[in-house]
């Protein structure tokens, strides 16, 4: 507390309620006469619904209603949509199949909702859901995207022949082919990016309340972007017009992308609350979360890298098949296209790139953005093939990277992105020093003397954050603009409320956003309140994802603060009979430079509201709003270095050291940035070593609980060494780049590069479980480094 400006390791203002059990999450909300919803879900991955018999459920005392897709359609509730239009390379629009919040004809993934029971208690609702009899006629299911494209594969949607959603390309195919034709070495790899389940610790939840007198709905929900939820619920799902729908996202227990989207359950809860005339609460259990929260990743890629005789990269060719699951989730089409293939240049100067992406329907849970969203997939492809190419041509992976780094900025890549700033040597140098890269051969020999295999892996990532200029994303197919809004309200007593369209679900906005105000006016952070997550309070906002709250959300706050500062200075100049240019703000006081005249910030605020003596023509009050539209993406980058020790007898991998050297541009609160990196690294290491959404051939999700899906636990991961270097982002007022996803983006290839180095076998898929590592390491005996 006190004045805590930019760069301060300010402790979090929001912590007190969380450490004392006073957080207010959606499931904590209890309303009078509240009912509970439980969904009847398909046990089959692909089946025709022939009958739904709810009679037994309806006879149970306390059951208010059993609703199906028939009533939903009759009431005019719209289909779920994908809000980003991607066109195939032949110019045709993507093939989007119909997705209903409650399906009444054909189910296309296990866990899809076919009916909902509304009852007096949660237990009763679940019992009654079990009593709803649904007859299915099973259809053949397909879970592999590559197999789904083959002739004769089961077909999911009539709109998408051969299950193909789009066949998209980026880059210049002819120049890329030419680079390969004249290459002196080509590295080719088949790379899989395993399917993940986001798993925020708070399961999704919704409390819907319809007010019959006002014809008005309130929805409390676990959302990263309540205004986007309101917009989509209104404009596409026809639940209610925007002015008759208030969406509140209170404390939200993590998101990682999975709470961006508006799911069937929230739609149904709202609709059902009007149907039954009582509030409706739905809380996901963990298995429902595994079955219905949008999954992440699931790419299969063939990548080829062309080198000239000097080991300079001349071309990069990538063919990816992206599994989007049974339906197109809200932003699913953008993830394997504009958030993926636009980052395939990595940190490298590559003159020719061509990428082709086929997006495919399968009988699996829909796939959409998960922490990193496309960028981890791109980084994994780039950093695995860079490491592999270096090994193949006998160069040190460090020298090979340096030989090909982008070193002058701005740098236009062949895949849309224009990198604005960075210093890749600086983060590489920092990481190598911190992990004692030069001392690695000695450590490898020492490990070998104990019968252990040591490996070192690097990953030099770049990503694009702060999504993004609205006109740019609009031209690429986005259905929304991606600006952010802010409003700064100075109260008559001088305390300040900042209303933001960003949403905090763990990121610490209540602290970091207050630091901006503290820095600007020299007031204590305890006099600042950050308001977010309520469409009735904040006018509009695009929400938090894509590491955009700093680069975009805070930039909007800075713009609003500029306006407040200008008005406060005008008032101060008027009251102190000085010129505006002579007013300086220091320590919460407005001073006339070179004199002892001064007024406190709270005196100026009071003067603005009493309005007894304001400059001619000035409106009373001290409250300003701003919309900020970015001028470019931002480009965080860095080097991650991972050192592992593998036990060849068991295949068990231990990460003995992990260094992350990141360039995030300007950092507001280093403590919070470090926390973001720790969490991202652990999710990335989870992907590399542990996590996998495993389906059997019939489309049953085998890993649908924490008994089966290996979440990283405390003893699976090390303590981390974090470093930062700084090049400022030239595109926004504070020079920020974003830090929320970097850890998850950069870490998987560092881990796999390290293990493959240790076992001397480059053929290793994620997750690198002990069994896989043991199998891959057979025959690899401990060897001293040369």
């Amino acid at each position, binding site marked *: 507390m006190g004045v805590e400006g930019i760069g301060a390791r300010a*402790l*979090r203002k*929001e*912590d*007190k*309620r*969380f*450490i*004392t*059990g*006073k*957080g*207010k*999450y959606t*499931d*904590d909300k*209890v309303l009078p006469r509240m009912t509970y919803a439980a969904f009847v879900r398909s046990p089959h991955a692909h089946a025709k619904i022939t009958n739904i018999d709810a009679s037994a459920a309806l006879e149970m005392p306390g059951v208010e209603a059993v609703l199906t897709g028939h009533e939903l359609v009759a009431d005019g509730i719209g289909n779920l949509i994908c809000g980003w239009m991607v066109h195939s390379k032949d110019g045709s629009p993507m093939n989007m199949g119909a997705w209903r919040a409650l399906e009444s004809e054909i189910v296309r993934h296990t866990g899809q909702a076919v009916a909902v029971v509304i009852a007096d208690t949660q*237990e009763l609702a679940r019992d009654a859901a079990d009593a709803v009899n649904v007859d299915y006629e099973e259809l053949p299911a397909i879970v592999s995207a590559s197999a789904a494209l083959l002739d004769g594969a089961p077909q999911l949607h009539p709109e998408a022949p051969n299950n193909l959603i789009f066949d998209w390309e980026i880059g210049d195919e002819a120049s890329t082919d030419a680079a390969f034709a004249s290459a002196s070495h080509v590295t080719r790899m088949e790379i899989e990016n395993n399917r993940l389940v986001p*798993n*925020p*610790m*708070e*399961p999704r939840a919704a409390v819907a309340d319809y007010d019959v007198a006002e014809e008005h709905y309130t929805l409390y929900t676990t959302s990263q972007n309540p205004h986007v939820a309101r917009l989509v619920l209104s404009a596409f799902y026809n639940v209610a017009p925007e002015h008759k729908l208030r969406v509140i996202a209170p*404390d*939200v*227990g*993590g998101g*990682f992308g999975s709470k961006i989207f508006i799911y069937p359950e929230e739609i149904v809860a709202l609709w059902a609350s009007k149907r039954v005339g009582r509030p409706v609460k739905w*809380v996901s*259990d*963990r*298995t429902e979360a595994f079955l219905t929260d949008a999954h992440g990743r699931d790419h299969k890629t063939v990548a080829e890298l062309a080198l000239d005789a000097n080991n300079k990269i001349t071309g990069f060719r990538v063919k990816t098949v992206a599994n989007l699951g049974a339906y197109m989730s809200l932003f699913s089409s953008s993830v394997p296209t504009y958030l993926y293939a636009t980052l395939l240049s990595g940190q490298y100067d590559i003159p020719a790139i061509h990428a082709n992406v086929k997006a495919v329907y399968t009988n699996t849970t829909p796939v959409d953005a998960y922490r990193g969203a496309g960028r981890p997939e791109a980084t994994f492809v780039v950093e695995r093939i860079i490491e592999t190419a270096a090994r193949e041509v006998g160069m040190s992976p460090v020298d090979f990277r340096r030989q090909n780094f982008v070193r002058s900025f701005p740098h236009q890549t062949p895949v849309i992105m224009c990198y604005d700033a960075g210093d890749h040597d600086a983060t590489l140098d920092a990481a190598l020093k911190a992990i004692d890269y030069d001392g690695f051969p000695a450590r490898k020999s020492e490990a070998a003397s104990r019968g252990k295999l040591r490996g070192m892996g690097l990953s030099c990532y770049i990503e694009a954050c702060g999504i993004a200029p609205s006109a740019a994303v609009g031209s690429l197919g986005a259905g929304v603009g991606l600006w952010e809004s802010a409003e700064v309200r100075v109260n008559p007593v001088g305390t300040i409320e900042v209303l933001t369209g960003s949403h905090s*679900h*763990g*990121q*610490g906005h209540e602290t970091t956003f207050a630091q901006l105000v503290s820095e600007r006016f020299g007031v204590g952070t305890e006099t600042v309140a950050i308001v977010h997550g309520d469409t009735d309070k904040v006018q509009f906002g695009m929400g938090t994802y894509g590491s955009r709250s700093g680069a975009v959300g805070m930039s909007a706050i800075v713009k609003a603060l500029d306006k407040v500062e200008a008005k406060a200075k005008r008032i101060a100049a008027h009251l102190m009979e000085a010129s505006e240019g002579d007013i300086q703000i220091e320590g919460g006081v407005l001073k006339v430079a070179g004199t002892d005249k001064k007024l406190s910030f709270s005196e100026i605020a009071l003067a603005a509201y009493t309005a007894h003596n304001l400059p001619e023509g000035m409106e009373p009050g001290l409250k300003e709003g701003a919309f900020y539209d970015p001028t470019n993406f931002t480009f965080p980058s860095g080097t991650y270095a991972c050192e592992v020790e593998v036990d060849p007898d068991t295949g068990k991998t231990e990460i003995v050291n992990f260094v992350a050297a990141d360039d995030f541009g300007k950092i507001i609160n280093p*403590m*919070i940035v*470090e*926390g973001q990196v*720790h*969490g*991202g*690294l*652990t*999710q990335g290491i989870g992907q590399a070593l542990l996590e996998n959404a495993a389906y059997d051939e019939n489309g049953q999700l085998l890993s649908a*609980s*924490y*008994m089966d899906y290996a*979440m*990283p*636990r*405390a*003893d699976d*991961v090390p*303590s*981390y060494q974090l470093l930062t270097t700084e090049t400022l982002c030239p595109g926004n007022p504070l020079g920020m780049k974003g830090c929320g996803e970097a*850890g998850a983006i950069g870490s998987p290839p560092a881990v796999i590069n390290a293990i493959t180095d240790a076992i001397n076998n480059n053929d290793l898929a994620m997750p690198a479980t002990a069994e896989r590592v043991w199998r891959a390491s057979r025959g690899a005996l401990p060897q001293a480094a040369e």
Partner: protein
Amino acid sequence: MTKVAMTLNGKKVTADVEDRTLLVHYIREAQGLTGTHVGCDTSQCGACVVHVNGRAVKSCTMLAAQASNAEVLTVEGLANGAELHPVQAAFREHHGLQCGFCTPGMIMTAVDMIQRHGGNLDEKTIRHELEGNICRCTGYHNIVKAIKAAADQMSALQTAAE
């Protein structure tokens, strides 16, 4: 329905609940203390950890009736009035939480861990002891630091008192 009585955060409470009611639902719904969370269905995540008769227990794992007449402590009962428990303070000081959802269970597990190990907690032991608590935000790094710091502080206070 069964009448279940217990001492919850030092106060005697009672409620009529269905026989199958889990302790976590008794605490959250019958008693309105929502600091204890439900994060999974399989007793894996630890968001629901409370103390029953002084020992850390996953409150989704036992029936409310099994806690009849027991002393139950939840995260709401940990602070001494306005004075935070050292573990609570350490979680804030070391940024051991982000979204806050796993935090009550983490803190209750940590208090129990420190009570059992005293000042002998090292990083390896803390990480091993946390196997029943999942956090998706922090990567555990700062949770481990917070627990170590709290253990050291509590051990020093105890030594000073002796």
